[in-house]
């Protein structure tokens, strides 16, 4: 088994090669930037998605750089602005392909390719590529949660056959992470459960079935069996971790189990469940249970709903009149404001966990994004994107950056490079790019 430490070293070598930047310096064993055991603090990657975009004229700041003036729809993120970058002017390039409403924008952003048909997934999503590189050492390759109640609300896709389902209940997320199978890294005594060995042999016995089966299958099924095998190996790895004493982690704390909550697309319930799951996720990261996560606050074509209103977020974006005096749709924009508040609270929660000489957020790179800019028009140009966190010092924050109508794959490429993947070009067709967003590098 590759140890966590060698894995990180391997990927760091890749960064140095790909970017030709002296990033290795950041990972020297300076006081406070390392585990007590001497291994560097891990850098985590996450995505945070909200549906139905924003109103460009109310969201995009009027100036670039550090001193971007606040805007009505970014007001909720003012308190955490030092942790963020605001990215505007990046497009999903349809290049003659159909704009599948509420799908093309997000699939283009995350996979680097526009889907010919709505169900197509042209390539693995960004988080899966990153998890394949940095997620192998932890108990979970990645964790997904959605605040709107459906496990299908997930954009973490290995391919069209494998969509990593979202946890939808705070209690279920808690049980998955901190329930059976969790070893407290700070426990005084480590006593492995002998049952784990039996479990491991039960799963490993399947290996022979696989070899036999693979010879009989066509290429369509072999690809599916590969995904099955990846999943099986992940569980084997989880079990192997349970047989080792985990290294102590100063930032790790076990939360209390949340009470069962009402789960629905009512925006107040979604905000509550999002907050509870964000707390659990922050500690799952601090306890190094995963290094990759994906949050869906609301899905594309947002089904968020305000109690007592006959029309939900998505329908409002299409049917509500643009208020002549205000110049926007006030009812639909209500949900934009709630989404930005949720995002700001998510960032604040990661920033509230102290880790090393900084915070958990300092060791994260989170990309927030939506599937449209102006949802009423299903517009996939000028998509709203934000990053949060310094990725262990690799990212400069606090700026408003414009893509000047470049392909949004520049962002995805940069995310991969910042996370240490040796990638110099990314994207398909008109979306292929070799140009990273240099302003993001510190």
């Amino acid at each position, binding site marked *: 088994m590759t140890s966590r430490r060698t894995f990180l070293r391997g990927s760091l070598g890749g960064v140095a*090669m790909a970017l030709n930047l002296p990033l290795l310096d950041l990972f020297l064993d300076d006081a406070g930037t390392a585990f007590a055991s001497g291994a560097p603090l891990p850098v985590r990657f996450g995505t945070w998605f909200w549906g139905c975009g924003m109103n460009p004229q109310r969201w995009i700041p009027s100036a670039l750089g550090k001193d971007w003036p606040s805007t009505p729809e970014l007001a909720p993120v003012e308190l955490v602005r030092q942790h963020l970058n605001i990215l505007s002017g990046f497009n999903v390039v*349809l290049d*003659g392909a159909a704009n*599948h409403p509420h799908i093309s924008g997000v699939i283009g952003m995350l*996979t*680097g*390719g526009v889907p010919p*048909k709505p169900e197509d997934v*042209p*390539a693995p999503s960004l988080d899966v*590529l990153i998890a394949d590189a940095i997620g192998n050492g932890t108990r979970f*390759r990645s964790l*997904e949660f959605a605040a709107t109640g459906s496990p*299908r609300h997930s954009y973490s896709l*290995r391919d*069209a*056959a*494998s969509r*990593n*389902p979202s946890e939808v209940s705070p209690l*279920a997320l808690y049980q998955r992470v901190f329930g059976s199978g969790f070893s407290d890294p700070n426990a005084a005594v480590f006593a492995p459960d*002998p049952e784990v060995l*039996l*479990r491991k*042999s*039960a799963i490993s*016995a*399947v290996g*022979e*079935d696989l070899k*036999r*089966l693979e010879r*009989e*299958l*066509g290429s*369509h*099924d*072999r690809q*599916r069996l590969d*995904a099955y095998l990846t*999943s*099986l190996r*992940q*569980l084997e790895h*989880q079990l192997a971790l349970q047989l080792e004493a985990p290294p102590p982690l100063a930032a790790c704390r076990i939360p209390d189990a949340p009470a069962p909550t009402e789960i*629905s697309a*009512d925006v107040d319930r979604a905000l509550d469940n999002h907050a509870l799951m964000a707390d659990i996720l922050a500690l799952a990261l601090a306890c190094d249970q995963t290094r990759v996560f994906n949050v869906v606050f609301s899905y594309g074509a947002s*089904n968020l709903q305000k*109690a*007592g*209103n*006959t029309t*939900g977020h998505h*329908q409002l974006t299409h*049917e509500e009149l643009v208020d002549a005096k205000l110049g926007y749709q006030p009812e639909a924009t209500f949900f934009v404001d709630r989404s930005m508040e949720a995002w700001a609270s998510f960032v604040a929660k990661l920033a509230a966990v102290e880790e090393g000489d900084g915070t958990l957020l300092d060791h994260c790179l989170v990309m927030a994004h939506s599937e449209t800019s102006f949802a*009423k*028009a299903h517009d996939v140009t000028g998509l709203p994107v934000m990053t949060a966190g310094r990725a262990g010092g690799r990212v400069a924050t606090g700026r408003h950056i414009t893509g000047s109508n470049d392909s949004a794959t520049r962002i995805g490429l940069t995310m991969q490079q910042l996370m240490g993947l*040796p*990638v110099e*070009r990314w994207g398909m067709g008109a979306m292929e790019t070799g140009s990273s967003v240099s302003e993001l590098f510190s």
Partner: protein
Amino acid sequence: MTSPKRNLRVSSFVVGILLLLGCRDAPVEPGPIAMRRITADQYRQTIADVFAPEIKVTGRFEPDSRRNGLLAVGTAWVSITPAGFEQYDAMARRIAEQVLDPEQRRRFAPCLPANPAAPDAKCAAAFVRKYGLRLLRRPLGEDEVASRVALAAEATKQTGDFYAGLRVVLASLLVSPEFLFRVERAVADPGHPEVLRLTDFSLASRLSHFLWNTTPDEALLLAAERSELATDAGLAREIDRLLASPRLEAGVRAYFSDLLEFDALEDVSKDTLVYPHFSRQILEDAREQTLRVVADHLVTRRADYRELFTTRNSFMTRNLGLVYGVPVRAREGFEATSFAADSPRVGIQSHVSVLALHAHPGRSSPTLRGIFVREALLCTEIPAAPANVDFTVVQDVANPDLKTARERLEAHRTEAACESCHRLVDPVGLALEPFDGSGMFRATENGVAIDARGELDGKEVVGPAALGEALRDSEAAADCAVLGLFRYAFGREPELGERAFVRALEGRFEDSGYRFSDLMREIATSEAFRTTSGPREAPAAAPAAGKEIG
């Protein structure tokens, strides 16, 4: 009466026979096979059948994926994610613990070990053979038995418990890809080496999942083992047995749950400020109501499939009675009832389950309902929005006083780019406007009388009853039943070489008086059902998304 369409069916049938002489249903070039992930229902039913209904299956299943209108087709495309595998593993362990706990083990283990604290290769092998056959739906090879017996011995040595060994073996069978996926195999027909025929065990599994939605029972496995399914007579006998069994109802319900998208009912929530009467219990009762009507109509009464769209027969609980506005005598459970002759509740498309599912949380949606009727009941392909549509022009609604859904939609439909799709779906859904977003009857919306004028294929239909009659008389609806059941049985769209077969099925369905179980029999006994072109191959790989250095 011979319609032009029937003539076409006959002629293509004849050509097919000429092409492939000697086979009963020859006009078919069969399509590919792909493994299918078992559904949550199939998993649960299989465990209940192989062990006992008391063995609890606890855990979450990975969401299924809908393709060509059916989850059954999606099962031939989905794989298993890490989160899904964790869940399968946890379920497997909980099942194995229950089956082999000290109370139950005598019931399920086929033998007693010589020493309960030591490995016993003979007894372990008997266990592996028995449950391997039931769970993987084929006999295990000797090397497969040996490797699992070795696994059991290893676990027994570690724990000093023979049954702990069996527990590990059972858990490993339950996470095997051949349990979680139905893997079908084919071999060349000895008489016609160019024809690939499903193996007896693969055919048994395909039949059982198609007709009963579960793993083959012992009688069917025995017929497979004795090569009886390879003969027309033996196959017909088993199919007759499966069709005559009370378990056929489970199979028919599974198909209609899938077709009617009832899995999505779990995600339905209604705004209780708008619909204060609404509850999860009502939704669950409504689902059961529709499935009861379907099973009663198609299985018990063996009635005309097309009359599902006009039947007034129903089943009610007290809860449902409140929503439907009908008195219910039974204090608990369902009672058979029928809607009055002047009731707008005509056919399953007027049930609360369907109406509430295809609506928004706080209001009705003629568009969503129209899409459902078009896609699920009529198999109309609704084209995707054209490339680069400027959606901004659609929504420039100048008039803020659009009170009814009809007015809102008409404003929305004036744009040519959108009109093509909306004209296809909205008029169908408008006929169902007398039902609000929760499926309750209403005469007005926002104080304006409901106008229930709709249209289906150029014919005006006013209100739910007329829509039901139009669906009953629609040739497309009957043909769609054939196409839907084909997709369900084969896990895919018909291939080009199977179109003549589908046409022939349409004709025979008509000839049978639209008896659904006869259609099931036609498919199950067909040559297409038993043969294949081989494993499905993936399309050529897409260009690489990323380039690595070096």
